[in-house]
């Protein structure tokens, strides 16, 4: 069995990784084309993956957002202080962009279905899906099928872990309105999930 890494080893690895990141950043700042290629090759998958999952159902926005994240990063690369790994720093930029998108979406008037349009939910049988991959695919499928305001509300609240108070403050809505939107979104999510589960 592999020994569990000691705290000192973890710290040393982290310091070494950040030192590597800093060297790469210095080379990119020196306009070294090979370092720039390395920068893109090293971090693009992570940023793309994050954006693809957070911008559901707007797959059409992912590539533009990813490009924008790298541009913003390059323009502010001289502000990178090596306090965190570069991928975390890039994810922070991506997160800002995603939240800007969420904010804009939830500031638009949301057309909620009538009260009786939604049936009372029953508990979704998520536990039947043991495979993480399947669970992820189904989750994406259902999120993509929701009205955008609903998927944005769910992603922001649960995947980005923002409180309803924060969301309310950032979108100019009342907390109550955000809670109502989330309740509707959860109900529709579960209904769609169950619809998918039902045999044809």
């Amino acid at each position: 069995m592999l020994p569990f890494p000691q705290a000192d080893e973890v710290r040393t690895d982290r310091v070494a990784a950040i030192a590597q990141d800093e060297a790469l950043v210095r080379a990119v700042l020196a306009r070294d084309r090979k370092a720039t290629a390395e920068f893109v090759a090293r971090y693009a998958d992570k940023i793309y993956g994050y954006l693809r999952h957070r911008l559901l159902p707007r797959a059409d926005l992912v590539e533009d957002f990813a490009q924008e994240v790298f541009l913003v990063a390059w323009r502010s690369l001289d502000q990178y202080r090596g306090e965190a790994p570069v991928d975390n720093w890039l994810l922070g930029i991506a997160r800002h962009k995603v939240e800007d998108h969420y904010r804009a979406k939830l500031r638009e008037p949301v057309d909620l279905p009538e009260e009786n349009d939604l049936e009372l939910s029953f508990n979704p049988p998520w536990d039947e899906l043991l495979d993480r991959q399947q669970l992820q695919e189904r989750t994406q499928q259902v999120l993509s099928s929701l009205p955008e305001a609903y998927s944005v509300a769910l992603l922001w609240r649960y995947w980005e872990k923002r409180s309803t108070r924060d969301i309310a403050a950032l979108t100019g809505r009342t907390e109550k309105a955000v809670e109502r939107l989330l309740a509707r979104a959860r109900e529709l999510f579960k209904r769609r999930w169950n619809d998918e589960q039902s045999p044809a």
Partner: protein
Amino acid sequence: MMNSHLPDDMLFEDLAERTAAYKDKAPSRLKSRIYSRLMLEEAEAGPLHSLSNCARDGRRLCVFEELVRIAPLGESARQRNVCRVCHARVLAEKMENAPIYWPNCPYVRFQNR
């Protein structure tokens, strides 16, 4: 295993937790476009780190870059973004895993083969 008797909030927090990890590969076209865009920005900001210096630093050059490096040209030519006029860039930006195979070409490196 997910406990479906949890209150809604916890149920969704749990679902988010279980689906938070993802391992996607960015399309090679996208990586190519990002790189090209960054190179444009860098070239606009000033001369690039010259190909002679790249070679001196131990970086491997593609055949086209190597030609520019050894050709009897001024140093400023070696500081230009030579990928701008290379067909590999055009193909890589337009096609997923474009059929380009030059060793040490950045656009080949971005491919998900």
